[in-house]
């Protein structure tokens, strides 16, 4: 690392003799690193750890709900479980894993040697990491509703006034507030970094219109972070003022407004969904063309649709509040705005379809996850349209139908695309390819488990089962569906274990990847796997959107058509 003081050869040799000394040295190197690749990998590792924790929380909830009137966990424990599961998955799994890939890939794909602000990058990671640890420290230090619990138990959207001191007297809500606040600071830092990197650090020849779509998607996502995460951060500070400095923003017993919190939360919360899904679209935009052996169909339309989604997503938040009593005018407006967003989203699906059309599709594990993404995102979009119809939403909101819908987005679309990205870029990150046979097991088990759980989860919602209930009556006809849902969860858990095993095994013994295992077209595949510190010995110059295509097909380069 060029940023560290050079170590003298003598001192170097002595530490190499002692294994513990070497361990410390490696640890020191990772803790002090400002290299975008190392930070990216730390983001990903951190997110994977939290994913396992939040996955166990999901399993415990599914055991509790598998049969009616179950006593596997107490109501207090169940309320903590869904609060921690939601908060962890959104803030400490989804965001860091996507920023991890972004950190790793954006500089490589635009031919840069690092992010624009390497030290801000490290700061953002560590502050977000600290936020996650603080949230989990509440298990040891906090106390919840009626001082009965330890971890936060107010739900991941923490509606006022449940978070007021009158209803949450302990400190668990404070851990939630501070954890989310710190994660938000890290998020804004990284977003600032990616936006600046994209604008300022592109290699010679890479105009904005030649950037890989993944970079475009991250660029739009990060711009949205500024607008969306700031209100959440503000709301957290207002909540702290309410709880400790006698403020009354959300304190309904002193004239505050519960609805105000909902507005603050969802003006963050809905763009947040797009903040999470746009990077997943970005992965799809790189992976689907490579395994179809065709250029992406309609690049300008894809960019336009992304920017369109970015803007429209800022005007749809109150579709989370159709039952709040905003009045028919507001409900009609947000119905319309929400439906409109399906147009650019539809354009994306059609463009992926057209990319597949006439291609030569290679069903690698990575591509299979991407195909799963396409079908599942289609369904998630269509149930989203159902929810955008305000009257239909009056029945569906707050029910298991909504839980099924957003898990279809978060798991069926985003997580599938994240798995796809793992199989695609793991060779670049580690130098070794993930074993395909284990990958196929992972895919099929996860696919079956996913559909058992989340397809059937729509049904109890339509049969009147609200979300966030720790148990239900036997006479409601929900029991069979819940049993199926829970059994699917077990399959997904097994699939995740196979995936973890595959990563560990392949890291040491997987087939060696070489610089370009997929015969791909973007700049990260021009450098070694894993790339050296500073990525490129000589900065590349590009002539088109697919520089490696031009290199591999000098007789018919892309630059002729752009």
């Amino acid at each position: 690392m060029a940023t560290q003081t050079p170590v003298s050869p003598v001192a170097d040799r002595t530490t190499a003799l002692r294994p513990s000394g070497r361990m410390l040295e490696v640890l020191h190197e990772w803790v002090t690193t400002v290299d975008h690749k190392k930070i990216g990998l730390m983001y990903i590792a951190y997110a994977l750890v939290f994913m396992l924790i939040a996955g166990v929380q999901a399993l415990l909830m599914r055991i509790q709900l598998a049969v009616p009137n179950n006593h596997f966990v107490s109501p207090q424990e169940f309320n903590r479980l869904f609060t921690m599961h939601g908060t962890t998955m959104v803030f400490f799994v989804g965001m860091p894993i996507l920023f991890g890939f972004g950190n790793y890939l954006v500089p490589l794909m635009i031919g840069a040697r690092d992010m624009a602000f390497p030290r801000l990058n490290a700061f953002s990671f560590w502050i977000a990491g600290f936020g996650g640890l603080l949230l989990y420290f509440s298990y040891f230090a906090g106390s919840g509703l009626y001082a009965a619990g330890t971890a936060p138990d107010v739900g991941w959207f923490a509606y006022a006034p449940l978070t007021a001191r009158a209803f949450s007297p302990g400190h668990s809500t404070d851990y939630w507030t501070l954890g989310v606040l710190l994660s938000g600071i890290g998020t804004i830092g990284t977003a600032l970094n990616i936006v600046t990197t994209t604008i300022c650090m592109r290699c010679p020849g890479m105009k904005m219109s030649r950037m890989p779509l993944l970079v475009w998607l991250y660029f739009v996502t990060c711009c949205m972070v500024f607008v969306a995460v700031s209100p959440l951060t503000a709301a957290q500070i207002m909540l702290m003022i309410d709880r400790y400095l006698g403020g009354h923003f959300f304190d309904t017993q002193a004239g505050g407004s519960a609805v105000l919190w909902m507005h603050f939360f969802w003006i963050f919360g809905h763009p947040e969904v797009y903040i999470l899904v746009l990077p997943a679209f970005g992965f799809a935009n790189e992976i689907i063309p490579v395994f179809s052996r065709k250029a992406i169909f309609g690049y300008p339309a894809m960019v336009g649709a992304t920017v369109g989604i970015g803007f429209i997503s800022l005007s749809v938040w109150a579709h989370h509040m159709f039952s709040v009593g905003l009045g028919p005018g507001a409900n009609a407006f947000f119905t319309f705005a929400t439906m409109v967003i399906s147009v650019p989203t539809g354009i994306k699906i059609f463009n992926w379809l057209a990319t597949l059309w006439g291609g030569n599709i290679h069903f690698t594990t990575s591509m299979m996850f991407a195909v799963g993404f396409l079908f599942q995102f289609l369904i998630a979009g269509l149930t989203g349209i159902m929810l955008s119809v305000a009257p239909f939403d009056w029945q569906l909101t707050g029910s298991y139908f909504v839980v099924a819908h957003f898990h279809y987005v978060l798991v069926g679309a985003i997580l599938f695309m994240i798995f796809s990205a793992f199989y695609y870029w793991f060779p670049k990150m580690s130098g070794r390819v993930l074993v395909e046979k284990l990958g196929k097991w992972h895919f099929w088990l996860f696919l079956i488990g996913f559909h058992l759980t989340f397809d059937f989860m729509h049904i109890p919602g339509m049969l009147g089962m609200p979300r966030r209930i720790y148990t239900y009556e036997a006479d409601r006809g929900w029991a069979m569906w819940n049993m199926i849902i829970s059994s699917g969860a077990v399959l997904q858990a097994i699939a995740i274990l196979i995936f973890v095993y595959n990563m560990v095994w392949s890291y040491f013994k997987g087939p060696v990847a070489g610089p370009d295992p997929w015969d791909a077209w973007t700049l990260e595949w021009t450098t070694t796997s894993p790339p050296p510190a500073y990525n490129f010995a000589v900065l590349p110059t590009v002539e088109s959107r697919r520089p490696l295509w031009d290199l591999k097909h000098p007789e018919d380069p892309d630059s002729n058509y752009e």
Partner: protein
Amino acid sequence: MLIRTTISAIHILAFGLVPTSIFSPAGTPAHSIFDLSMFVFAITGTIFLVVAGLLLYALIRYRNQPGHTGREPTQIYGSNQIEVSWTVIPILIVVVLFLTSARVIFTTQAAPKPKKALDVVVIGHQFWWEFRYPKLGIVTANELHVPVSDPLHPTPTYLTMSSADTDHSFWVPRLAGKTDVIPNKVNVMWIDPATPGLYLGQCAQYCGTQHALMLIRVYADSPSDFAAWVARQKMPAVESADAAEGEAVFQRNACINCHTVAGTVATGRFGPDLTHLASRDTIASGALPNTEENLRGWVDNPDHYKPGALMPPMHLNQHDLDAVTKYLTTLR
């Protein structure tokens, strides 16, 4: 009508007789949502079949087959005509869907209130429902009685709702969509069950530890049954001589701080009104059948049935516990 009957038959076959299904509507708001939802299902279902069909076709038709030459397929970068068409068609679908939805939004939320409508004030509490009939002078809890509404001469019930503590949501799926019950905000919704019967529901907005057992029971009574119910509920509490001891225990303990028994010194408002407790089918917000055994157990230790319920265990001795239970069962 035929379509509705067919759908409800399919629905019973698929899901069984579910008391809370949105697909067996029994009131105007639920019916209009049901009809709209069928239209939305038809449109989204068609879109799914078309797009998923094309996807499946492309995946099979253009898969990499053994013996492929290794030559790259023809590179196609886009097509303005196609892209315009798959932008315009969705826009048209959106316009149609929006106009249909807007109609139901306005007919439900901006419907003029009929003169004969019944008014009920709904107050959400941490983990139970208070129902007040201001024009009738009735206060009750958890079990809402309303008259059936004849479609020709509608007598809907208008619920004016707010919360005493955290957010709740009033959801009885067969009668209407849900409306949130929020402190410092007054919301109004209406229901008009056409056939007598019991309609179940529950709180649909996370409100604290016992959100799960904050159940709702709506009894749609025939006009004569409703009149009889009103007449009885208007009366003060029954005084019965053999329950005098239990009444004394009730009144000298903390019970009266939270509960009202009309016509006595008990005027608390934090817990449910008990004036006609014995006329209700359930206790603990629908969580338990209203039997003597359950009442006794509940008074002794509510946490055993509903961990996190706000009523404290009363720590009465066995004798007093029996007496209070006896007293409560006489409050017809």
